[in-house]
């Protein structure tokens, strides 16, 4: 088994420093890796990024993160990424990483992802340049994510995004904003790569469990949804009994 801990939308700022970290005492006993599903800061400032880097450094297991929309708010996402990497945290955007866990080889590919909507209700790349730009951003990120996922040389592939790949986990969010909450292209990437699990955040009012059309399990690990320090998922490694 490979054991994954995951959480998103911790939305840390200076005054929350140390609070979340204080809950991570049993993390290394519980899991092989911690995945962070974006929206790690409140306003995306470098100073909040420093809090994030401190909060998740040396937690006893490798930490793999993507950023969320909040982390881009102050145009300091590069600095936040740099601060996190300096503390040994892997930050993915359209890339993948593999880890040798006791149960097998885990591959994780990640992207922030973007909105765009879901099959049948997705925004078309048509009309005003602003709308086309919106749709194109989502497509570009999803395409790179798909390539990174398929390229993972691992026993088990896991996809990590901030935006949601499916509608299932958005139940509770107003349908009018689904377009802003995720994109079916992220689910297609999970299905094409035969991933074992898709982790996302962003949908604070959604639910935890969902599934892609191809049957890949999806978990919304936004902290307000989980209401626990992290979600903990153990994955069977093919060929293992």
């Amino acid at each position, binding site marked *: 088994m490979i054991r994954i801990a995951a959480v998103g939308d911790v939305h840390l700022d200076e005054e929350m420093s140390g*609070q979340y970290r204080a809950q991570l005492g049993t993390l290394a006993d519980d899991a092989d890796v911690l995945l962070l599903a974006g929206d790690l800061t409140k306003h995306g400032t470098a100073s909040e990024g420093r809090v994030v880097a401190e909060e998740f450094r040396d937690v006893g297991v490798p930490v793999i993160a993507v950023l969320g929309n909040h982390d881009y708010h102050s145009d300091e996402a590069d600095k936040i990424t740099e601060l996190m990497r300096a503390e040994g945290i892997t930050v993915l955007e359209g890339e993948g990483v593999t880890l040798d866990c006791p149960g097998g080889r885990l591959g994780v590919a990640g992207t922030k992802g973007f909105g765009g909507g879901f099959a049948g209700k997705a925004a078309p790349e048509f009309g005003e340049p602003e709308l086309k730009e919106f749709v194109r951003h989502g497509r570009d990120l999803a395409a790179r994510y798909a390539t990174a996922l398929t390229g993972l040389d691992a026993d088990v592939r896991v996809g990590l995004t901030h935006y949601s790949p499916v509608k299932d986990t958005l139940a509770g969010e107003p349908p009018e904003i689904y377009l802003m909450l995720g994109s079916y292209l992220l689910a297609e990437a999970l299905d094409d790569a035969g991933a074992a699990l898709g982790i996302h955040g962003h949908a604070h009012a959604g639910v935890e469990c969902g599934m892609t059309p191809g049957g890949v399990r999806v978990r919304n690990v936004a902290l307000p949804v989980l209401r626990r320090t992290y979600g903990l998922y153990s994955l069977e490694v093919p060929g293992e009994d």
Partner: protein
Amino acid sequence: MSAQEPQYLATHLREALAADPRTAEMGVRVRVHGDDVYLSGEVACAERRERILQVARELVPDRRVHDELSIAHVGGRPEEERLS
């Protein structure tokens, strides 16, 4: 903030609480009944709750702001889910 219709005021206030750098809180629900404004939803800590109330009172000084916010409790050892 001087929207006449309660539903516009509620929406404006909700957006202002999200946009104001002192609060930046997306999860606050706002209901308006006459001169009364009710804030509900979960926030991370007591300081944040106070700040949201303070900012809301500043934004609608001519209304009564009621605190129905709660503080999210996060903790306890998570249960494992086996996906097979």
